[in-house]
């Protein structure tokens, strides 16, 4: 027994090193499984508030360009607003529309922290569960894809953007409709890769890629990017496509979170189906 204690004492520094490393790696692995400990999360109070203060200062300096952006957006919205349209018939007006059901709701938010320089980037936004945000909601910015809400606290939420190596989203070629999957290789924050586009597709440089609408995160047709280059790797049946992202992740400032009002219904149905298949 005594010699055991002597041994431990002799190597106690190395033991402490091992314990701390194992602790750090364990935290890291848990982190990769997205079961992130919420108490040390950037959506938590301390860093969330610090980020908000910094954003306030940074935004003050950026006011001019944000104004220009908003003015442009205003102009666009004004052209599609109701007073600009002539009403052609006035005999049909429905209070409770049974033909159309609202499916997607947009909640606007502001980016208060954003990283582009890591393999696993995250965005923190200033809307949280009090604003109706939940996990697994899609996030877009001016009609092009940003990412998926991964975690929410009361007033903040963290978003896993397209430029995170753990992210993948179902997409399709806008022109011919073949579906595929987008992933990021961790390098250039302006480019992603599309896989599983079938050989029979006929992509062209400059083609638009949009969301497929299969998942519950995004409606169909949200802009993802344009094709920069494509090839079929030796011995494979699918295209590998280099895609230029249409969202400028370097300069995100305002985003919209998509609330899919029917997502629970879709997921429940799909789960029931899987349960039956399994049984």
């Amino acid at each position: 027994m005594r010699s055991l204690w002597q041994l431990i004492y002799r190597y106690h520094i190395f033991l402490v090193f091992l314990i701390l490393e194992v602790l750090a790696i364990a935290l890291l692995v848990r982190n990769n499984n997205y079961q992130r400990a919420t108490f040390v999360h950037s959506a938590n109070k301390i860093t969330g508030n610090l980020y908000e203060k910094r954003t306030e200062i940074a935004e003050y300096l950026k006011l001019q360009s944000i104004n220009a952006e908003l003015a442009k957006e205003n102009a666009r919205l004004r052209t599609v607003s109701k007073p600009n349209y002539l009403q052609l018939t006035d005999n049909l007006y429905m209070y409770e529309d049974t033909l159309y059901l609202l499916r997607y709701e947009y909640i606007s938010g502001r980016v208060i922290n954003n990283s582009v320089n890591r393999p696993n980037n995250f965005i923190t936004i200033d809307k949280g569960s009090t604003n109706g945000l939940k996990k697994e909601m899609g996030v877009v910015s001016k009609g092009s894809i940003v990412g998926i809400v991964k975690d929410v606290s009361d007033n903040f939420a963290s978003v896993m953007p397209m430029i995170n190596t753990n992210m993948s989203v179902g997409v399709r070629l806008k022109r011919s409709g073949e579906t595929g999957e987008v992933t990021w290789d961790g390098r250039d924050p302006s480019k992603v890769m599309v896989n599983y586009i079938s050989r029979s597709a006929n992509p062209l440089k400059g083609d638009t890629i949009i969301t497929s609408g299969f998942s519950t995160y995004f409606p169909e047709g949200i802009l993802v990017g344009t094709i920069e280059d494509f090839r079929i790797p030796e011995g494979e049946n699918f295209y590998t496509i280099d895609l230029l992202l249409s969202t400028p992740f370097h300069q995100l400032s305002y985003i919209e979170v998509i609330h899919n009002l029917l997502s629970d219904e879709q997921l429940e149905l799909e789960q029931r189906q899987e349960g039956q298949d399994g049984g």
Partner: protein
Amino acid sequence: MGGEIIRNVLRLIFLILIQGLIVNSLDLWQGYILPSVYIFGLLMLPITTPRIMYMVIGFVAGACVDMFTNTLGIHASACVFMGFIQPLFLRFLAPREGYEVGQRPTLQDLGIGWYITYAGILALIHHTWLFFIELMRFTPFFYTFGKILLSTLATLVLMVLGQYLIYSPTDRRKK
């Protein structure tokens, strides 16, 4: 001694805030260069610090930086590894007569050649561990290797410049 501890803790907190709020969003060369200035606070720990404390302080400081970047564990593990090497390296770099009492591991106290070897190699170890742990694989090897070298260089330049700015030579005589 108490003052020394408070000074070290305040320095670390200040550097972690700088790292989390400013340096991480610098976006140098599309994010290819990513200096870790907060390790300056770890490299500045007194030479007489117990070996275990290097690792414990490193773990806490790294975990704080991780909170900003949502990468719990990555910086912590890199700092623990650096904290493990640091005292061994300090002993290896010691002058023949050993360190003088009250000598700090700074450019002013031990000279620029000594400092660049000390800080450069430890920063290199830190960044190597950091970026490969972050990727969890060795695949874009040369890409990551370049990132490590350039980030280390940027960190070193910032630390050397910072010392020239903060600690004036007169400081040393007063001591």
